[in-house]
């Protein structure tokens, strides 16, 4: 059991891969944005890689242990201290009942993950414990954690002093410039060649008007093919309008002239085109970037993106622990 002293900035319980299976009812998957760091935190404390843990964004929470437990922190460095003593990330740590874990702002990266042996034991809603904060469902009473709440933890046996091998950890950039993999489609044929080249050669800036539903990007104008102009009226009048269709997770959704990367709490359908899609393997980069930082997109094939996701999943395992 963990008591919330300070909630941090929209800290929420997430599990992986989240609330899958209800896209046709309009439910996003939710889940941790940086699923690489998240899964490693769980592996450190002996949980299944997808067990429910905490996602801390930009400013972490302060939590008090109500009983002894083993926990691990991964992802962004939020300068965590246990009863005032700095604790390392990427390592399992034993806490005693009554001790307080204090996290502050993210020095490197944007999202830190806390796993606790046994995993959080909040109510399962539509197959998952993940929080969809804006939608008011999952997690703790549908929302991010609040001061005064006690987060339920299932019984678990963790071992302290286990570390993730440095070679198995994601490496966060320090110059604010991320190279992000992208696959063409589904609607790349709506963008003309000049527009496609412009997309791939631009360093797109992550806007502060971003949240767990969408990452807005700032950059140049888009140009279109004939298909965007000659279409039946039910598509809508803007070149970027299409007959309402389903949006894949990671889609670069073109809202008029503003590209929005649809992330974990995404609206899963609507009337704009998706010329590109960010694949699973690049989501940790999205999760660890801050507004003002830039994305340079690198086009990869579907098969290469799948292979990279497989490589990351293989790393989220016992073999990465030393």
């Amino acid at each position: 059991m963990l008591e919330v002293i300070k909630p941090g900035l929209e800290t929420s319980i997430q599990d992986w891969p989240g609330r899958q299976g209800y896209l046709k009812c309009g439910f996003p998957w939710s889940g941790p944005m940086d699923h690489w760091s998240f899964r490693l935190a769980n592996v450190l404390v002996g949980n299944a890689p997808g067990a429910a843990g905490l996602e801390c964004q930009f400013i972490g929470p302060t939590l008090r242990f109500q009983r002894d437990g083993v926990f691990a922190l991964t992802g962004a460095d939020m300068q965590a201290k246990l009863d005032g003593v700095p604790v390392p990330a990427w390592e399992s740590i034993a806490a005693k009942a009554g001790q307080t874990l204090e996290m502050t702002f993210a020095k490197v990266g944007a999202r830190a993950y806390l796993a606790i042996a046994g995993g959080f034991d909040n109510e399962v809603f539509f197959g998952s414990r993940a929080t969809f904060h804006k939608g008011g469902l999952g997690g703790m009473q549908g929302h991010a954690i609040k001061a005064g709440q006690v987060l339920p933890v299932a019984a678990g046996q963790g071992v302290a002093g286990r570390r993730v091998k440095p070679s198995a950890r994601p490496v966060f950039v320090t110059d604010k410039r991320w190279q992000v993999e992208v696959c063409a489609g589904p609607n790349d044929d709506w963008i003309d060649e000049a527009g496609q080249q412009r997309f791939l050669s631009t360093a797109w800036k992550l806007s502060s008007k971003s949240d767990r539903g969408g990452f807005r990007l700032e950059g140049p104008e888009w140009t279109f093919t004939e298909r965007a102009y000659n279409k039946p009226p039910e598509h809508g009048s803007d070149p970027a309008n299409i007959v309402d269709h389903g949006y894949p997770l990671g889609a670069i959704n073109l809202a008029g002239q503003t590209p929005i990367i649809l992330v974990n709490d995404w609206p899963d359908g609507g009337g704009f085109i998706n010329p590109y899609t960010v694949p699973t393997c690049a989501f940790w980069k999205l999760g660890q970037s801050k507004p003002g930082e830039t994305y340079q997109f690198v086009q990869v094939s579907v098969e290469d993106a799948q292979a990279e996701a497989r490589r990351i999943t293989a790393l989220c395992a016992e073999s990465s622990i030393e």
Partner: protein
Amino acid sequence: MIYAEPRFKPGGDRFLEIEFGDELNLELNFRAQGLGQAITREQVKGVGEIAPFFSSALVHYDPDVIGYGDLCRELKRLIESVASSSDVELDSRLIYMPAMYLDPWSVEAIDQYIEKINPAKERDPDFVARINGLEDAAQLVRVHSGTEYWVAALGFWPGTPFMMPLDPRCRLFAPKYNPPRTYTKTGTIGMGGGATAIYPVDGPGGYQIFARTPVPIWDMQQKLDAFKEAPYLLRPTDRVRFVQVSREEFDAIERQCAEGTYRLNIVGYQKISLKRYRAWVSTLDQNARF
């Protein structure tokens, strides 16, 4: 247009979009819904979920179980088996939704938009009437409420219906707001492109708005009988009929919904046949209006 061959496009490493055509047409949605049923029935290996939309379907798959190429071939086979049957029938409930047309809350949202964002914006009911060649807002109300709506998909937000008119004489088109509205009240009914939707919660929006229902379509508290199984009211392949109500009736229904005592009129046993729908449409003068 209905494409001779469905088009497959990847959406990253684990999604695939199938386009059956590029228009609002019940036949296209039947293909998407039919494929969804076939996938569930045959339990296609590696397919996680499918979200049918108006004229397309989004498929989530596990690339560790099935590759993109194999999945396309498998889906093509299923699509052909669905298309080759002489008729497709889908279960369809009919739900009567009370709606107050030309309601004061839409007027307020439009006023706010005109004042703060775009002073040149023509009021939504007048604008939609004009560009569709109707006499006035009153005729827009007659035409919009004169048909059953087909719930082609839920999306954007949990339980939000994307609907199309089943009666071709009630087809309307409208561009979306540009830039979008910052505020729309829960239950507001509007349209964009050729689709009609109901706003599940307060929020921004892009549809042209001209009516509001007092009945929730999304309720995490699941107060009404109709929400017994899920926090959302409507399901894909439902039909919705808007029933015009006065301000007094609106207020009374709103109260009953808050108390949890309102009973929605839902007809639960019907089936929609594509063959019979086509036969009916062929008897109509499609340029007629109500």
